[in-house]
């Protein structure tokens, strides 16, 4: 008879054998339904919903290289470090390197030289588990400034927070809210709802965007737009007539004046003929013919040169100088040739000539000349070529390209006119001569007045591009900070509550911040939002306050989009 201990020993062996059998049966088993069998001993739990389908085709091997390999490779894998991060980054890509802190090359303090996805993200915690849930401790792993929580020890917000630069549009909140509308003339236009009169809370997100110009500024400022003409070209003064009257006549036909002349001439001719017939005008017939020839411009050139007097006393405007590439817009010797060529070309091909010249400067030449009719260009050119002032067919133009006696101009159709924007953008690109730029951006006259509100900025050194800030834009380019207005608005109540956080600072020298092109040298209309403002609610035992509520680890707001596109590519 076997002793109790004997049975116990046998049972222990059986148990060991049973476990080994289970491992043998399920440890190396084929990947089952939906890639991985629940009985697979290597399955430490379901994948999160987002990753659940990974295993469909290749099973665990989708992430774990060692899976389904030969015995030797399998054993080797036990001694080699895992490289799961590589597998992650086949779908998850970032602006920076995937295995650097914040996908950026920071100054590395030694503790974390290289990051792995699995350092923070844990999988196999069940279909419902979040892979992205993080604890504050994980952030504190690297961040040297350690603190307990947001409400307790978070570094102070930067000065002028959340503003890190001046606003794109010079819009003095203080004066608009508290000054301009005091004036009885405008009091009926006063924004009764204050902030939300302009800021559209329906679209509130990271920013609360401002409604369109037409719905806001236009009420007062629309009229200022129309008067701002852009002068493209003038007919300058020449010392001698650069044009060949015969060619011009051939190309343009008689000028209007000439036609009138012809009318007169024809009556003169008839009179002369009658005189001739009557015999009355027989006297000095040759003189009469010469007189008529002169009237038709067919007179003797030698006498004409001496007689040439330019109809214009203008010089070339900067845009024309830019367009023609001449050295000096005030020196007839410098511009006569190019101007003659241009006028001739305009006679030949109308606005195409200007387009051709402009194309050498910018790709969006066509846009810059949008709405210029070939006829206008040609008519103007013919008039000028005949040393005559152009006579516009009708005086009033609603806007768009038009010409007056000695110039071709553009009048904005409305706020946001693309042609004017195009020309102003051209003005700020590198290589534009200073005088051209100054003209274009001259706030006092012409289209440059756009820059009165739309700031012209250059962030950084001289090598950086200067741009006109056409759009109401994001205040902060801090991509790792996240804030959403919407939930806060709903919580705090509409409209009036903006100023709970955004408090006007009437003392700020707001306008002074727009006297130069550096957007970072500025004074905010608002007082800085301080930590305590947020911490009023985001504090222990109140609203949650973990790091990831406001901070984004991956320095990239588009990671999700990137995953989708990466998958689509595959």
């Amino acid at each position, binding site marked *: 008879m076997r002793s*109790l201990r004997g*049975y*116990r020993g046998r*049972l*222990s*062996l*059986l*148990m*060991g054998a*049973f*476990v*080994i059998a*289970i*491992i043998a049966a*399920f*440890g190396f088993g084929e990947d089952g339904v939906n890639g991985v069998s*629940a*009985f*697979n*001993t*290597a*399955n*430490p*739990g*379901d994948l999160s919903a987002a990753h659940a389908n990974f295993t469909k085709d290749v099973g*665990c091997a989708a992430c*774990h290289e*060692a*899976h389904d390999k030969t015995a030797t490779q*399998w*054993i080797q*894998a*036990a*001694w080699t*470090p*895992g490289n*799961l991060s590589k597998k992650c980054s086949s779908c998850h890509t970032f602006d920076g390197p995937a295995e650097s802190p914040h996908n950026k090359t920071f100054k590395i303090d030694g*503790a*974390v030289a290289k*990051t*792995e996805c*699995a*350092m*923070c993200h844990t999988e*196999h*915690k*069940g279909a419902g588990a979040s892979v992205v849930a993080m604890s504050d*401790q*994980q952030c*504190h*792993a*690297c961040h040297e400034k350690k603190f307990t929580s947001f409400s307790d020890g978070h570094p102070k917000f930067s000065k002028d927070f959340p503003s890190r630069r001046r606003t794109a549009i010079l819009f003095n909140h203080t004066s608009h809210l508290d000054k301009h509308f005091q004036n009885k003339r405008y009091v009926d236009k006063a924004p009764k709802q204050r902030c939300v009169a302009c800021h559209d809370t329906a679209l509130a997100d990271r920013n609360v965007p401002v409604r369109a110009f037409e719905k806001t500024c236009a009420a007062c400022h629309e009229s200022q737009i129309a008067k701002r003409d852009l002068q493209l070209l003038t007919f300058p003064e020449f010392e001698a007539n650069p044009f060949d009257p015969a060619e011009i006549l051939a190309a343009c036909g008689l000028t209007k004046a000439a036609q009138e002349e012809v009318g007169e001439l024809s009556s003169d001719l008839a009179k002369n003929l009658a005189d001739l017939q009557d015999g009355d005008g027989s006297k000095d017939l040759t003189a009469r013919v010469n007189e008529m020839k002169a009237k038709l411009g067919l007179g003797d050139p030698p006498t004409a040169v001496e007689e040439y007097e330019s109809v214009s006393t203008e010089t070339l405007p900067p845009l024309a100088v830019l367009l023609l590439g001449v050295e000096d817009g005030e020196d007839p010797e410098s511009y006569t040739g190019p101007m003659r060529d241009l006028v001739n070309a305009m006679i030949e091909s109308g606005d195409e000539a200007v387009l051709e010249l402009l194309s050498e400067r910018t790709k969006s030449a066509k846009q810059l000349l949008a709405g210029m009719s070939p006829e206008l260009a040609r008519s103007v050119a013919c008039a000028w070529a005949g040393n005559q002032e152009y006579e516009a067919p009708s005086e009033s133009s609603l806007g768009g390209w038009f010409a007056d006696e000695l110039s071709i101009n553009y009048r904005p159709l409305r706020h946001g006119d693309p042609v004017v924007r195009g020309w102003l953008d051209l003005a700020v690109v590198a290589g534009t001569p200073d005088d051209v730029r100054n003209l274009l951006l001259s706030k006092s006259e012409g289209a440059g007045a756009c820059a009165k509100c739309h700031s012209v900025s250059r962030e950084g050194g001289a090598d950086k591009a200067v741009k006109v800030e056409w759009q109401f834009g994001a205040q902060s380019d801090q991509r790792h900070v996240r804030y959403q207005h919407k939930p806060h608005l709903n919580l705090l109540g509409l409209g009036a509550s903006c100023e709970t956080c955004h408090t006007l600072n009437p003392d700020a020298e707001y306008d002074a911040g727009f006297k130069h092109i550096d957007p970072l040298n500025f004074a905010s209309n608002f007082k800085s939002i301080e930590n305590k403002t947020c911490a009023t609610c985001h504090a222990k035992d109140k609203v949650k306050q973990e790091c990831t509520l406001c901070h984004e680890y991956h320095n990239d707001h588009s990671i999700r989009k990137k995953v989708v596109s990466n998958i689509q590519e595959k």
Partner: protein
Amino acid sequence: MSRRSKLPKIFFGLISIVVFGALFWQSKVIMLRLGEPAILTGYTLMASMLLLGFFNFRKKLSMIPIGRASTWLAFHVVLGVFALALFGLHVGVFWPQGLYEQMLAGSFYMVSLSGVVGYALQRSLPRRLTQTGVEIIYERIPAELAEIRERVEALVLECTEKSGSDTVAQHYMGTLNWYFQKPRFRLSHFVGGDAGGYWLRGPGGAARRYINDVEKEYFDQIIALAELKSLVDRHFVCQGVMKKWLFLHIPLAVAVIALAIWHLILVNVYVI
């Protein structure tokens, strides 16, 4: 009279508290470095389980001086508690996700629970056995019960012969026979109750009012033997429990160690 030395338990207890504290702290440090503390705790847990398992082999190595078994038991008990705490630190949750991990955790908990229960039984049952006043070797119990039964049956026969009445015999056939067949009232004996005595005072002794003086003499002897049997039953049950709880503890421990080794291999192949 004799006292178990608490010294080894205190000694190992203090050491394990220190070790656990160090592991806990180190885990935090590793976590703050975004490392994987489960590697440290896992290997420590594995070592602990192997050391725990070695206790069983220690029993087979009693010929060599490798410390007293009582020291080893103290070590085993303390290390068991330590391993349970370490398991919590390693797994982080009570119930893991994967089926295999659940098997591992389930077995581990069962081993731990059986260990705690077994230890409690081993601390409490010997006292109760001692209080029976009799001492008997477990393997001898079936023979002892048979012997008691034979003596009772002989008494019944003799009683019938001497008294000429079969009242006692009928009572024996109808009632007492059941009692003497095998160990009875096991649960009561296990939990320390007196169901056997209660039964003997009730149904077991019910025939007493119908018998004469001669029969009473025999009947009293039979009841005395029945009471003795109750004590033997108690030994059977309690000694049995003290032996059989290991039927759960040891095979499960083998399973846990086998499962854990495979777990360790998988983790090395797949993750680290």
